[in-house]
């Protein structure tokens, strides 16, 4: 997954876009000759939709044993042993001040060489988001928005995506 880099998609034919959702149509940008898109991994957490740049995503694991660490804040769930590597895990729900939930998926990110796993409710899909369609967040300083660098409507209009700023995760 990490090798999925920026890719150019030609928006000429409706069916060419978003191979995973071929039945969905994207009439809005129909007729625009070329749009640069960026792949995002969409996940659910605390009833919200989040997207994280696929370039940061190493892998998704489920049902891994997390070893809790004492002393650290609540939102640091602990560490996991991922094939010999010790990776810290942050509970994304707790970051958003939502109650903890069992049965979560871990999205392992590599943010500038630092490995970090985030606990999310479930992982939804990969989407291509055209550059420029990510809009700024209205400032209102609530905790959920602390880690959000932008928002955008999903191409299939099934919801609104909060775009996660991975670098901010390292400085909670």
């Amino acid at each position, binding site marked *: 997954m990490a090798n999925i880099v920026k890719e150019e998609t030609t928006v000429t034919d409706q069916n060419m876009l978003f191979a995973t959702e071929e039945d969905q149509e994207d009439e809005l940008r129909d007729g625009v000759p070329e749009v640069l898109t960026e792949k995002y991994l969409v996940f659910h957490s605390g009833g919200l939709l989040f997207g994280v740049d696929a370039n940061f995503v190493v892998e998704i694991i489920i049902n891994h044993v997390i070893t809790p660490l004492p*002393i650290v804040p609540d939102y640091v769930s602990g560490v996991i042993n991922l094939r010999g590597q010790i990776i810290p895990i942050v509970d994304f729900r707790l970051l958003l001040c939502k109650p903890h939930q069992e049965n979560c998926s871990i999205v392992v990110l590599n943010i500038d060489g630092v490995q970090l796993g985030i606990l999310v409710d479930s992982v939804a899909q990969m989407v291509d988001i055209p550059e420029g369609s990510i809009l700024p967040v209205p400032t209102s300083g609530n905790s959920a928005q602390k880690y959000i660098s932008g928002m955008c409507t999903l191409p299939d209009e099934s919801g609104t995506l909060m775009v996660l700023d991975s670098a901010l995760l390292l400085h909670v």
Partner: protein
Amino acid sequence: MSNSGNEILDMYLYETNTLLEQLDSIVLAAEHVDSFSEDDVNEIFRIMHTIKGSSAMMEFTPLMTIAHRIEDLFFIIRDKGMNIVAEEHRPLLFDLMFQAIDYFRSEVAKIENSEPFSENIDTFIENINSFIAKIQQEPSSGAPAAASAPAADASSAASADAAIAGFGTDPAHPHLLHVLFDEGCGMENLRAFMLVTSVRDFCADEVFTFVPEDVETNPETAEFIVENGFLLRFINAADRDKAIPAVTASGSVKTYQIADEAVPAPKVEKTEQAAPAAAKKPAGQETAAPAAAPKAAPAAAATPAPHSKESLISVNLSKLDHLMAVVGEIVITESMVTSSPDLKGLKLDTFTKSARQLRKLTDELQDVAMSLRMVPVSGTFQKMNRIVRDMSKKLNKPARLTLVGEDTEVDKTIVDNISDPIMHIVRNSMDHGLEENTQDRIDAGKDPVGEITLAARHTGSEVIIEIRDDGQGANYDAVLEKARRVGLAQPDVEYSQREILNFLMMPGFSTNIEVTEFSGRGVGMDVVKKNVEDVGGTVVLSSEPGRGMTTTLKIPLTMAIMDGMEIAVGHSIFTISINNIRQIFRVSSANIIQDAGQKEMIKCMDSFYPLIRLRDLYQLKEGLDNVEEGIVLWVESGECSYCLFVDELIGEQQVVVKPLPEYVNSYNIKTYGISGCTILGDGNISIILDVANLYSAAQGL
């Protein structure tokens, strides 16, 4: 490109450092017998040749120049035999060699730190020259290669025809390309060979020949090329034209000209090409040199070295660490597979047999992987030879160094960490240990030449390094008096000899009032002690007045593995180093005493110790409350000694220590006694506790 340039630089530094170490030991050994054997001379000649060659490739001119002069010097010695150096000149020769080694070392260090070279090498060159003159008694021929180079160059430039004629003719390849290299660029034969290699990229092998033909294998051809240039012959002119870009792109090409043998026709002197090429040289160094070097560096190393029975390869440490991690994984995965719950109740004879075989192999693999990190201490020990030699001269105390058990192997990290402490102790022994005057030694009935022994040996999981001198030993009264004066010792308390010696290792203690060149620079035995303790070792001093002093370092074989005791609190598993555990016992609640601050204490061995409940300290959700149900560990580290209450003991296990990720370390968990973690056999993670920090965290609550 820049990346591969760095690799070449790394290789250069590694190679040069290795050669210098080799050179150091050769010269040291030779100084003992006061002569260079024929093998030594050849070896030094080879080393200097290689350094000269690779330095020239990297365009480190000062290094190249000096290596070149020393090579000349040893060329003479090789030619005429060691007898040419008169007895009285020999100490000078050895000193000169040591100076050279030190010079190379300092310059290589400068390259490593990307500092500029010290340009002033004239005096040093002058020293070598005058020495050459001294042994030759005819200064004029002292510098054959250097002197002839400019001369030859001038002549060949003046009469290029004559130079070309000097190559003889070859009717099959009438189209000539005559190349002249920059003056004094060194290693002309290899440059020529590289040129041939790059020409091969443009022209097929069959369509050209070159003169001299044995440039790759015969270093002597360098001189020929300096004098006559290098000649490429082509069957037809088109191929030659194709080769010209390769020639212009090569570094150090001063000029070239084309000529046709059959037709004594227009020679095109490409001066306009030569000028940019020459002008390009300083600026284009970075571009031209690295491009040339990949082929050149191995060639330079390989050419003059029929000796190279290389059975060693250098591997990046991070690769080894990675290998260790993977091997650790394999061991865990293997036990996961063979003890998989899916296999329960099945009777699988072949599977069990193969699984046993696999276990054997993984165990072996683990042992081999562990041994890869082990290096002999001889490298560190050999360095001490030089220190003893230098100090022996400076302080005028004859001394010799005896090495015992240099093959003893220790983890690489540990070897790096004990090098400085050993050096310090050896210096101390030379400076303070051995008697000031030889006469004192003779009076005491000892060999006038002092002896320092460095010994290493294994005992199970530890390596023991002893630094022994046969000097005067510590003066207990003086040490005690000094300790009282600086306030380390109580005025009217009696101290045992061992306690007195321990004062030597306390911060702020130095028996030497004067700061000498070698010791007493504020870096004392306390730093030695600290360095050794950093790698998990201990220092013990012992001394016998008049017989000498022994410093013993006890160091664990590796830092990465420790004997741990697994303990559990609720569902959390922790590991404590066995070395810190004094006793494990159960207590009844009657033995617990509470102080005014609600802190608990426990009585063991007629003394009271604080009781720390790990569960309360870490605010764990699970765990036992009743002291009688759980178990108490009496732990100790340095100054602190206390009891730790946990739920249960799981067992003793050798664990591989892994650091915790930086992300969680940023929450200051180290100050709460969490120093790392380890992966257990079932893949779970256990947290390693640091007894000392845990105590201070508990006190701080």
